[in-house]
């Protein structure tokens, strides 16, 4: 399994923080894990928590912004990672209460 170097993690964390800041208040936070996708390829799985308003009134616009702004800042192919994204809003997380999304 791919284990990102400290520098790579720092780069990912910095990009994530920047995207969250840029898309505030629509994006509340972004969590991620690195692992393998269904076919065994290395992947990074982003979990993006959105505000209720953003998810209800402009979901496609916000999700597209998140995907492309992360891709602008992180060269996933050279990292050997394929990015996947999942989204939920604050109210949904309040109900589902998953630690990985907190």
């Amino acid at each position, binding site marked *: 399994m791919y284990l990102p170097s400290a520098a790579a993690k720092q780069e990912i964390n910095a990009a994530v923080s920047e995207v969250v800041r840029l898309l505030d208040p629509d994006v509340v936070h972004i969590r991620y894990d690195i692992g393998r996708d*269904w*076919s065994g390829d290395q992947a990074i799985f982003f979990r993006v928590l959105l505000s209720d308003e953003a*998810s209800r009134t402009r979901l496609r616009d916000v999700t597209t912004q998140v995907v492309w702004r992360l891709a602008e800042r992180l060269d996933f192919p050279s990292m050997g990672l394929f990015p996947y994204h999942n989204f939920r*809003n604050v109210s949904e997380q309040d109900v589902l209460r998953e630690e990985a999304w907190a």
Partner: protein
Amino acid sequence: MPFPDDLLDQAYDLAHKEPTDPKQASLRRAVSTAYYALFHLLIDEAVSKWAVERQRSILARTFEHGKMKAICDDVLKTVKSGGSVLPELNTVAHNFIQLQQHRHAADYDNSRQWSRTDVLNVLALATDAITAWRAIRMQDAAQDYLLQLFLPRLPKQ
């Protein structure tokens, strides 16, 4: 209405089936159905080129998810390296890979909880990919892509 459109409609129906407290079963089936809408669209397009109609369903069963992913990945790599790719084809390839992973999680990962927001985003990926495909389906690049889905690793011209 073509079968892929029926599947996509069904995916949206499932996503909205329970107005306030969506069941995981409805959300999971919506995700899986959205993937198959795009999957069948591409396969139907590819096998429709085959002249002997009664053989098309046999041909359709030879398409493999893994090979299709690899061809989509090639498209994305071409874009990343500055190669010329129709933006719509990039959308199809990108969204196909995303949908495939989501479908796998929806069908096999029972530890995973889905939200309606997540599912509606997945359905939008399928909708965008289908729209993009229909905008370019008659172009040479789209036809070459279909051929590669069927005969992966075709030498580049």
